[in-house]
C-alpha cells in the first residue's frame, strides 16, 4: 500500500498550518475549523499506523529513505518501531484535544495560535520518526520556534522571561549534541542511526559523547538539576502550550535517550548509569517535596511532571544495570517497558491535569491554590474529572499512572532494593501533594465569592476531559494493547543494550 505514511504524518499538519495562517484574524472561526480538520486528518492517518505496523515482528518498519544531501551522504530517513508508533498516536490525540481546548479560550490571533500548534505537531512527529541523526536534530530544534512563539505571545505575565529561558536552555543542550553528532559523522561518514550504533568507539570518546547527549536530553526531559526552565515555562504558557509541553515534548527527551545514548554509547551509559539513576531518584523524592510546597497549581503539576519523568529515566537506566551488570535481561525489559508505559501514561495524565487547571483559570484568572476552595460545590462534573486525574497522577491502581510506575519499581527492586525503596516514595509523596491539592481546591467551604459564580464545564470542555479520562482509565485497566504494541521493540532495545563497543 501507500508507503509514505510517515512523511504524510509529518507534512500534513505542517502544510495545514499555511491555510490556517491564511485564514487570518478576520476569519477566526474558519482558522479554528481548518485547524481541527487538519488535526483530525492527521489523527486518522496516524491510526493507519496500527494495521500497517507489525507489532509482533518489531524493529524499524515503514522505512522511507531518500538521499537528502548527496554530497554528505545525509538521508531523509524515516521509520518507526512500536515505541514511536505509541508516541505518534499520543501526539495526534493530544493535538486534537489541544485545538478543541483552545477553541474559545484563545481570542487573540487564534489563526497564529492554531498554525503554531499544527507546525509543532508535525515537527514532533518528525522527531519520533527520524532515523538520520541530522534529520532528528533538525526536527528536535525546529520544535523550539513554534513553542517559543506560543509561550511568548499567549502566555502569562512573565512569559517573556519564561520563553527566552526555555529557548536558550534547550538550545544550550542541543548545540553540544550537535558537536557530538558531528564528531560521530567525522568517524562514521554517515548520520544513519543504525550505522552509528555499530560504530566502535573508545571509552573516552563514548564518555564525552554520552555527556553531550545527556545534557541535551536531560534538559528536555527535564532532569534535576537542569529542570528549572520547566516550572517557568509551564506557569507562563497558555493551557494548550502546557499540555503539549508536558504530554509530548518532554517525551522527546527520553525518546532521544533511547535512540541515541542506548545504542551509540552503551559502555559509557553503563558506566554512568549510577549518575542518571541517582538524579532520577532525586527527581522522584526531592522534587516531590518541592511540589508539595507550591502555591501555584500549574507549578505544582509542573514539578510533579519532573518527578514522574524521573521514573522514565530511572526505568531506562535501571535496564542498563540489570542487563549489563546483573545479566538479567527479562527484568531489564520489564523496567524499560515500565518506562515506556509511564511515558504514554504521563502524557495523558499531565495533559489532563493542565487542561483542568486551564478550565479553572479561564473562569477565575488565577492559578493560586489559596484563591480556590469548594469548587466541587459549583462544578460537580468538573470535580469528578479532576479527582479522577488526581488519582491517576498519584498512581492509583486502575488508572494508567499505576501500571508504569509499578513495573519500574518492580524492576528496580531486582537491581537494588534501596533504589526501589526511594522510587516507591513517589507513591506517598505523589499522593500527598496531589491529594492535598485536591483538598484545597475542590473540597471545603467556598471562601472566595468569585468561586461561587463559577459555572460547570460546558460541552467542549467535557469532551476534552472525557477523552483524557477514557484514555487514562483504558490504559489503567487494559494496558495490554499498548504493551503488545511496544513489546518486541522494547526487547530489541534491551538487546542492543548488551552490545559492548569497546
Amino acid at each position: 500500500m501507500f508507503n509514505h505514511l510517515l512523511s504524510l504524518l509529518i507534512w500534513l499538519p505542517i502544510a495545514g498550518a499555511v491555510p490556517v495562517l491564511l485564514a487570518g484574524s478576520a476569519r477566526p472561526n474558519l482558522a479554528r475549523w481548518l485547524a481541527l480538520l487538519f488535526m483530525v486528518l492527521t489523527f486518522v492517518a496516524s491510526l493507519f499506523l496500527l494495521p500497517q505496523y507489525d507489532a509482533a515482528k518489531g524493529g524499524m518498519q515503514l522505512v522511507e529513505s531518500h538521499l537528502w544531501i548527496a554530497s554528505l551522504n545525509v538521508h531523509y530517513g524515516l521509520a518507526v518501531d512500536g515505541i514511536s508508533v505509541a508516541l505518534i498516536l499520543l501526539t495526534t490525540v493530544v493535538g486534537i484535544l489541544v485545538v478543541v481546548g483552545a477553541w474559545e479560550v484563545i481570542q487573540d490571533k487564534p489563526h497564529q495560535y492554531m498554525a503554531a500548534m499544527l507546525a509543532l505537531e508535525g515537527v514532533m512527529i518528525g522527531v519520533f520518526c527520524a532515523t538520520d541523526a541530522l534529520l532528528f536534530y533538525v526536527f528536535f530544534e525546529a520544535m523550539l520556534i513554534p513553542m517559543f512563539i506560543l509561550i511568548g505571545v499567549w502566555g502569562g505575565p512573565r512569559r517573556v522571561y519564561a520563553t527566552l529561558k526555555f529557548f536558550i536552555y534547550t538550545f544550550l543542550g542541543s548545540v553540544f549534541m550537535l558537536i557530538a553528532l558531528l564528531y560521530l559523522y567525522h568517524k562514521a561518514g554517515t548520520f544513519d542511526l543504525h550505522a552509528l550504533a555499530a560504530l566502535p568507539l573508545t571509552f573516552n570518546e563514548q564518555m564525552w559523547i554520552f555527556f553531550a547527549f545527556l545534557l541535551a536530553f536531560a534538559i528536555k526531559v527535564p532532569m534535576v538539576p537542569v529542570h528549572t526552565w520547566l516550572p517557568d515555562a509551564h506557569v507562563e504558557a497558555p493551557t494548550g502550550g502546557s499540555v503539549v509541553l508536558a504530554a509530548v515534548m518532554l517525551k522527546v527527551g527520553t525518546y532521544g535517550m533511547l535512540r541515541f545514548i542506548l545504542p551509540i554509547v552503551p559502555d559509557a551509559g553503563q558506566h554512568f548509569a549510577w549518575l542518571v539513576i541517582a538524579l532520577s531518584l532525586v527527581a522522584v523524592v526531592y522534587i516531590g517535596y518541592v511540589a508539595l510546597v507550591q502555591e501555584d497549581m500549574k507549578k505544582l503539576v509542573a514539578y510533579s511532571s519532573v518527578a514522574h519523568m524521573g521514573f522514565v529515566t530511572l526505568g531506562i537506566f535501571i535496564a542498563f544495570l540489570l542487563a549489563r551488570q546483573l545479566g538479567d535481561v527479562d527484568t531489564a525489559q520489564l523496567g524499560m517497558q515500565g518506562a515506556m508505559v509511564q511515558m504514554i501514561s504521563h502524557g495523558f495524565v499531565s495533559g489532563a491535569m493542565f487542561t483542568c487547571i486551564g478550565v479553572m483559570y479561564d473562569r477565575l484568572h488565577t492559578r493560586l491554590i489559596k484563591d480556590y476552595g469548594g469548587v466541587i460545590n459549583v462544578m460537580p462534573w468538573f470535580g469528578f474529572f479532576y479527582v479522577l486525574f488526581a488519582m491517576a497522577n498519584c498512581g492509583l491502581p486502575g488508572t494508567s499512572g499505576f501500571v508504569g510506575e509499578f513495573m519500574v519499581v518492580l524492576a528496580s527492586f531486582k537491581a537494588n532494593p534501596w533504589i526501589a525503596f526511594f522510587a516507591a516514595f513517589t507513591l506517598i509523596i505523589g499522593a500527598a501533594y496531589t491529594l492535598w491539592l485536591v483538598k484545597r481546591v475542590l473540597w471545603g467551604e467556598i471562601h472566595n465569592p468569585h468561586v461561587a459564580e463559577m459555572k460547570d464545564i460546558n460541552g467542549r470542555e467535557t469532551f476534552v476531559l472525557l477523552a483524557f479520562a477514557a484514555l487514562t482509565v483504558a490504559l489503567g485497566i487494559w494496558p495490554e494493547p499498548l504493551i503488545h504494541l511496544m513489546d518486541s521493540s522494547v526487547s530489541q532495545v534491551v538487546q542492543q543494550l548488551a552490545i559492548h563497543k569497546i
Partner: protein
Amino acid sequence: MPTLNDILILLPEFYLVAVACLLLLLDAFMKPEQRGTLHWIAVVVLVVTGYMVVAGQPDVTVTAFGGMFVRDQVSEILKVFALLSTLLVFIYARPYLVERKQFVGEFYTLMLFAVIGVMLLVSAGNLVMVYLGLELLTLSSYALVALNRDSPLSSEAAIKYFVLGALSSGMLLYGMSMVYGATGSLDLAQLHVAVTQSAMPHLLVFGLIFMLVGIAFKLGAAPFHMWIPDVYQGASTPVTTFIASTSKLAAFGMAWRLLETGMGGLSQHWQPMLAAIAVLSMAIGNLVAIVQTNLKRMLAYSTISHMGYLLVGLVSAGPEGYSAAMFYAISYALMSTVSFGVILALARAGFECEEIADLKGLNQRSPWFAALMALALFSLAGVPPLFGFYAKYLVLQAAIDAHMLWLAIVGAVFAIIGLYYYLHVVKVMYFDKPEEGGADQPQADASLRVVLSINALALLVLGVYWGPLLGWCRRSFGLG
C-alpha cells in the same frame, strides 16, 4: 596585446563596465522624473550579466591576460551571488531612495562599479589584480557611504571608513610587496609554488601577516572590525545592505584567492592566526551585539560574529572547509539582504526604523513583515530548519574534520550566546505591544514586497533543499 579570447573571457565584466558608463551618461541627460527607467535598466543589466557569467562559463578553468584574470567555478558562483545580492539591494532600495530624494543616478553607477570590482577581485589571478579589484570596490563604497551628504552621521562614517580602509589597503599592499620580495612573483599560481621554496621564509611570513590584516579588515573580523558598526549605522540602509551582502562575498573570494591559491603552502602559519581572529570575532561580535539598541548596529556586530564563523571554515585549509566557508558567505548574503530589506520596507520618510524599539509589536501591525524578519533572525541565529543552521553546521563540521574540535566547541558556545540578541528582536516584534511612532505600514512597492518575500521564504526552502547549492559549492572546489 590582448587576444580576442582574453576579451571573450572577460566579456561579462566588459559588458558591465560599458553599461555602467552608459548609465552615467544617460543620467546626465535624463529628467529626474524619468529615473525610474534607470532603475529598471540597472536591474536588467545585472540579470544579463549574471546570464553571461553562467552561460559563458567554460568547462575548465581558463585564464586571461597572462594569468591576471582567472575564470573558474569558484569565481562563477561568487559572481552569480554577488550580482543577485546587488539586484536585491536595487529592488529594496528604490522606494527608500525615492522618499528621501536620494534617488540619483550616481547610486546605480557607483553600485555597478563596485560590482565590477567584486567580479575582478574574485577572479583575480595576480596580486595586482587583487588590489585593483579591491580598490575599485572600496573606493566606490566610500563614495556610496558618503552619498547621503547632508547627514553628518553618514559623512562621519564615510571618513572613518575611508581612513581605516586606506590604512588596511596600505597594509595589504605592504604585505604584498614583501611577499614579492621574498618570492619574486606576483602571480598567485606561481606564488603557490614559490612560497614553499623561498629563500627568505621569515620575510614571507612577515608579509603574510600584513596580508592577513588586510583580509581581516575587509571581512570585518575582530580585532579589525572597528569600522563595521559605525559604517553600518551611518551609511544609508541600502548601502549598508550592499556592504553586508555583496562585499562579504567579495571578501571571502579575496581571502580564498590570497590564502589558498597564493599562500596555500604557508597554511601552517596562517591557520593559527586565522583561528585566533575567528575566535575573537565570534566573541566580540556576539557579546557586544547583546547590548545594542540600534538595530543596524546590532546587525553590524552580528556580521562580525558571522565573519568569525566563516573564518572557521577557512581555517581548516582544505576543500571541505573552503566549500563550507563559501556556503556560509552565500547564506550570510541572503540572510542579511532579508534583515536589511525588512528595515528598508518599514522605513518611511522621516522614519528610519533603525532602533530595535521601532519594531515593537510589529506582529500586530504587519504580521507578514514580522514573519519575514523572524525568518531572517532565526536563520542568522542558526536555528534549524532554516538556511543559516546548515551554514553553521558545515563550518563546524569542517573544523572537526580538520581535527580542531576545540574551535567547533567555541563556535557552538558563541552560537548560544548569539541566540539571545536575535531572540530579543523576535520578542520585541511578537511579544511587546506596539507603540506610537513605531514601524507602521510597510512600503507598498509591489516589487519590493514580492522579492523580499521570495528572499525570506528562500531561507526556509533552502533550509530543506540545500543539497544542490552545497553540491555546487563543493564541485567548485573539486569535491564530489
